[in-house]
């Protein structure tokens, strides 16, 4: 609750469920996902591969493809310019959602190699975002693009406008991608594992750049990663996702110091620390594997792997959510854990 007063919410997601429709049945990919992000705040969405981070990100911009769709929930965007809309109600196509994409919300992806068209210049692909959203001429759009390229640290930004993606290194391309996502000054930036494909030094530079730009431009960032090191470095708050649900939310301090969900604790214990390696202690992996979403476990989806599961309750009913505001835990032990 302190969060909501410090930072007016840019995005408020509540009870977002995404389902995959096959011929005649529909399975839940995510259920009741809720989180909010304030201005100038970075929320890290963390979880194992396949837990539903990317589909959640795509849903926020109505970019779900194929047979995936939003089955319920709200995605309320309140942009810095005062514009407000429930994106979940907008549908996949149409002027309204198109006016939001790229302008009030920007997105960057994991693969800087393939996120640009190979046959268009970098400048054309950035300037296009400006001309699509704003009533400006080509020259002004180019000027703005060069300005953004300079901001993301690309040397000779004017010359870079006329170059092609293959002439850029991976790190430079990700910088250009950030420029493209930010050129219209969005209120929310969604970054889906933006540094996973880059080597470690470049990773650090991109993270520093994102932090700097966030402070400068004041946007909210949804940062998707499974690297807890990056979380500690980048995020203000963390949402832990497991098998399509957010099982715990809290500030970085709260999550790292007092993890309250058994899955969060397991995740933290699985991270190798410097000391562990020195002492040659075994890293503690999470036993078992992510459930198959086509036949999810009953009750709490984590119960087959949970060391503190209470039988038979945990396998029968979905656990309640405890806490309030920015600190939530979905576990039967939640109340006691939060009170600790």
């Amino acid at each position, binding site marked *: 609750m302190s969060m909501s007063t410090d930072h007016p919410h840019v995005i408020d997601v509540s009870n977002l469920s995404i389902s995959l429709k096959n011929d005649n049945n529909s399975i839940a990919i995510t259920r009741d996902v809720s989180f909010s992000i304030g201005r100038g705040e970075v929320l890290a969405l963390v979880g194992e591969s396949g837990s539903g981070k990317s589909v959640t990100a795509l849903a926020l911009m109505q*970019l779900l493809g194929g047979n995936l769709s939003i089955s319920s929930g709200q995605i309320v965007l309140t942009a810095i310019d005062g514009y407000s809309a429930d994106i979940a109600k907008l549908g996949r196509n149409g002027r309204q959602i198109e*006016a939001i*994409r790229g302008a009030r919300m920007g997105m960057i992806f994991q693969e800087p190699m393939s996120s640009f068209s190979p*046959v268009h210049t970098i400048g054309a692909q950035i300037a296009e975002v400006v001309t699509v*959203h704003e009533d400006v001429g080509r020259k002004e759009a180019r000027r703005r693009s060069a300005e953004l390229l300079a901001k993301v640290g690309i040397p000779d930004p004017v010359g870079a406008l006329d170059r092609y993606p293959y002439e850029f290194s991976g790190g430079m391309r990700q910088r250009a991608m950030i420029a493209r996502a930010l050129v219209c000054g969005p209120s929310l930036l969604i970054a889906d594992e933006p540094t996973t494909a880059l080597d470690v030094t470049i990773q650090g530079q991109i993270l520093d750049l994102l932090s700097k730009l966030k402070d400068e431009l004041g946007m909210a960032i949804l940062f998707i990663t499974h690297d807890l090191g990056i979380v500690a470095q980048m995020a203000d708050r963390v949402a832990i996702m497991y098998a399509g649900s957010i099982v715990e939310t809290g500030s970085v301090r709260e999550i790292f110091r007092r993890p309250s969900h058994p899955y969060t604790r397991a995740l933290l214990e699985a991270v190798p620390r410097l000391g562990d390696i020195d002492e040659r202690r075994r890293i503690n992996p999470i036993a078992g594997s992510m459930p198959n979403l086509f036949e999810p476990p009953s009750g709490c989806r984590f119960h087959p792997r949970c060391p503190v599961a209470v039988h038979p309750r945990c396998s029968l009913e979905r656990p309640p959510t405890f806490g309030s505001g920015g600190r939530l835990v979905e576990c039967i032990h939640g109340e006691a854990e939060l009170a600790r």
Partner: protein
Amino acid sequence: MTRFLMRRLAYTLATLLLVSLVSFIIIQAAPGDFAEIYAAKKADAGAVISAAQIAEVRRELGLDQPWYVQYGTWLANAARGDFGQSWTWRRPVGAVIAERLPLTLAIAFATLVFMYVVSIPIGVYSAVRRYSFGDHAASLIGYLGLAIPNFLLALVLMYLSQRYFGQSVGGLFSPQYSLAPWSWEKLQDLLQHLIVPVIVLGTSGTAFLIRAMRAAVLDELDRMYVLSAKASGLSPMQLLLRYPVRIALVPIASTLGWRLTYVISGAPIVGVVLSLPDMGPLFLNSLLNQDMQLAGALIFLYCALTIIGTFLSDVLLVALDPRIRLE
């Protein structure tokens, strides 16, 4: 980029040279040389020609020179448009061909335009509405187009257009326009007459291109850059045209050269069947009459057209795909 194009230009010139040599060999392969034919004709007319006179004519025409000197002379003359005399037409080969070259080019060009204008939108539609009724219909018509031989299609279309549209098919002009000076009406008349040959020549190529375009667009639709452009706020139409379609044109453009080859090599037969005043019937007759000066020149021209077409498709490819400029 200039290096790529220069290299391509060099290949093109080398191929043209090779083709010219082949054409020259074909001309030489005819039984008897021009001096003997000349002597035979004089003899027919009742004149008595001595071996010395034949040798004199040979010397005058340079026929006593080694083959490479003769080839050099032929090539130098050909470069100036002088392909020697056609003995069936009793006129310079260059002049005979010049009358028919523009229509040949018009048919080839119109066919290419037809193929691309029809196949690109249908291919894009089929990709975007995959497995829809329209997609299946396009596939069916496409397979039929591939399966029906050109000459059969020509005959059927000739019959249909005569029967139902009362149009004089065959030839490129209605009788009243064939000798008239160029006018708007004459041009319209020409375009109407082009429809049947263009459909005949272009159908199988169109069917093929629809499949190719469909596959190319399908390949691009799921790419990451399409999603990232969509996340930038482009409307579905802008998105489709600026990215997947634009990029799918790269492989399509690269086959332009051999599409042209296909059109050019199909043209003579269609020209004969539809009795078009293009180079087709001329070519057939020159072979039947062993008018090798004419035949050789035509072979050279047909080949040159496809070679130049291939070069143009390379130029187009460079314009469409900047990555090629790297090479």
